[in-house]
């Protein structure tokens, strides 16, 4: 068996490959299905960035937590959420874990250690720090990995949260998915730091920039940060340089020149890992084919199943806002 870094086995690498492949096909599918009117939820697609979510979540323990950004779809798959569950969410049907109340981007799965942020970019960062404090108090060495984008690193909550995390030595790993854009704003213009990782200096915490297209690089850096956090040494800021192949979301027209998009594709996370596995003789075309086949099947079956999910009962909205029914509030 070939040797892989960080104690990873061939099996681990194949699992990661499959997760990235799954993320890719998921992204392509929801883009198509949304445009075809089959999905009511506007998707934020992570195509090109799959290695970041996979690399940073793979290797976490069951009792660890993650807090995905709007775009970290891979955090869900890597933590064991099925696409059927997420499609129920995208349909807003009664089987959605949110009961149809929220989109799949804001679907929490506490049983799989998934917290969620709000629709406000970067507001999740302080929340992750608080979760980390609760984990620290538990004393089991659990950690939380918190994702956000380059654009998010410009918000005040980023600053306040990283300062708090450093001050309180919170067991949290901050993962910036730097895909070079926030909506249409180029990071090169609106993020004035040379690298987002430079911002770690403001909080005297380790800051590191890694190649977000190489899942092993992400994994290694994340695990190092996780270890630090588990040992009570506090937070780390990990910047993963990556690429967003598609527009911000399917309802926004793309303005990036084709050359730029083309260049991005030269460093594709699926290809980088796939090539390596093939070179090592661990991944045959047949394996890929069967993975592709399985994934396509799962995506299609799940969509169809979710399409026929039951619609939620309207009066449900009066429950689970407060611990009492909403109507008990008096006004």
């Amino acid at each position, binding site marked *: 068996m070939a040797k892989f870094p960080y104690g990873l086995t061939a099996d681990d690498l194949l699992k990661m490959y499959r997760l990235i492949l799954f993320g890719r096909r998921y992204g392509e599918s929801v883009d198509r299905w949304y445009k*075809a*009117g*089959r*999905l*009511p*939820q*506007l998707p934020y697609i992570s195509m090109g960035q799959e290695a970041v979510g996979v690399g940073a979540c793979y290797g976490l323990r069951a009792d660890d937590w993650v807090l995905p950004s709007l775009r970290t779809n891979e955090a869900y798959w890597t933590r064991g959420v099925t696409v059927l569950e997420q499609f129920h969410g995208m*349909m*807003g*049907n009664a089987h*959605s874990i*949110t009961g*149809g*109340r*929220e*989109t799949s981007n*804001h679907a929490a799965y506490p049983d799989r250690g998934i917290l969620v942020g*709000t*629709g*406000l*970019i*970067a*507001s999740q960062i302080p929340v992750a720090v608080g979760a980390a404090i609760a984990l620290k108090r538990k004393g089991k060495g659990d950690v939380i990995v918190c994702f956000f984008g380059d*654009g*998010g690193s*410009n*918000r*005040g909550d980023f600053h306040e949260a990283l300062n708090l995390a450093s001050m309180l030595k919170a067991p949290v790993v901050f993962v910036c998915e730097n895909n070079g854009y*926030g*909506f*249409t*704003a180029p990071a090169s*213009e*609106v*993020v004035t730091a040379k690298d987002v990782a430079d911002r770690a200096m403001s909080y005297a915490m380790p800051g590191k920039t890694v190649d977000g297209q190489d899942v092993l690089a992400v994994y290694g850096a994340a695990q190092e940060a996780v270890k630090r956090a588990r040992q009570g040494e506090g937070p780390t800021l990990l910047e993963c340089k990556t690429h967003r192949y598609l527009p911000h*979301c399917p*309802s*926004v*027209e793309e*303005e990036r020149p084709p050359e730029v998009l083309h260049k991005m594709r030269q460093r594709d996370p699926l290809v980088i890992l796939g090539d390596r596995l093939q070179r090592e003789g661990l991944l045959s075309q047949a394996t890929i084919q069967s993975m592709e086949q399985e994934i396509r099947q799962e995506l299609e079956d799940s969509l169809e199943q979710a*399409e*026929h*999910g039951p*619609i*939620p009962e*309207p*009066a*449900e*909205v*009066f429950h689970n*806002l407060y611990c009492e029914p*909403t109507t008990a*509030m008096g*006004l």
Partner: protein
Amino acid sequence: MRVLAGNQILREALAQEMERDQRVWLLGEDIGVLGGIYKVTEGLLQRFGRDRVTDMPISESGFVGMAAGAAMLGLRPVVELMFADLFPVCMDQIVNTAAKTRFVTNGLLHVPMVIRTPTISNVTAYQSQTFEAWLAHVPGLKVVMPSKPQDLGGLLLASIRDPDPVIFLENRFVYDMMGEVPDVIEPIPLGQARICREGTDVTLVAWGANMVQMAEQVADQAAEDGVSVEVIDPRTLVPFDLRAIVQSVCKTGRLVVLHEAVRRCGFGAEIVASIADSEAFSKLRAPMIRVANPGVPVPFSRALHKYALPAAEDLMAAIYRVMKRVMPKAMPKTTVKQQVELVASRPSGYLRR
């Protein structure tokens, strides 16, 4: 007169004022190349350059405060917030810097700025909130909420020229509505309500393009049943044309208020309370009713909207109630499939569903 869509009308007004007044500075997220998520500023970057149409980082508190500072020293910033749900991240700069500076400096400084923003109204819990009641609660702000496309340009010009900070709330449905615009847009003074339908039995006050439209439709339907509803769109909440409402209620003796925001402490409460302490009080013939969000975040699933958002049925029921008449009711259930079709049938554009 031309007939243009709401977002075009706003764009025309902005361009017209930018030509006239070099101090006008547009800033906001993705307003340049993208032209904003509802295309209001489309083409303005190309026409006026980056110094006058400036894309912002995700730093709403920062750039709202920055706009206020620029206004104090002579610019006329027009900020686009990507959506009204962003108010909670920048309220300090609005409440303390923009709203109070004229007061605390006794008029030595003032803050002539506008914050324009779509109120998305019915998408999800985080992208549907309209905070007009919060804003109207703040001394020093003016709050404009146009509902008819033909009012958009004139009210926007008046807002930009106003020496005070103005919050300009654009219900997103107005962007697609068509309205007449003169070749040269003239300002419409703030503080003048529009009587959309005259009537004698019930005064119905509503704001937000979709709510005013619903109010008119329900009024038309009620008319068929012999109930004469006067529909009033206040157009601006601060200053508020209370006289128009008082006069109407003096005539009808009945008041129904319709809005999309949460009922509890919504602006509807203010209108009812103002009438309760006005000369119209003694003319009242029925309880005053508010039709509004009953106090729940807007859920994602349309199937859950039935009780969460004010619907025509609710409004009609309120009208029959103040008329002390009985209304039969029925409401069809929607399926997920229908829901998806509904979405697919919408025009494209960010968050148009």
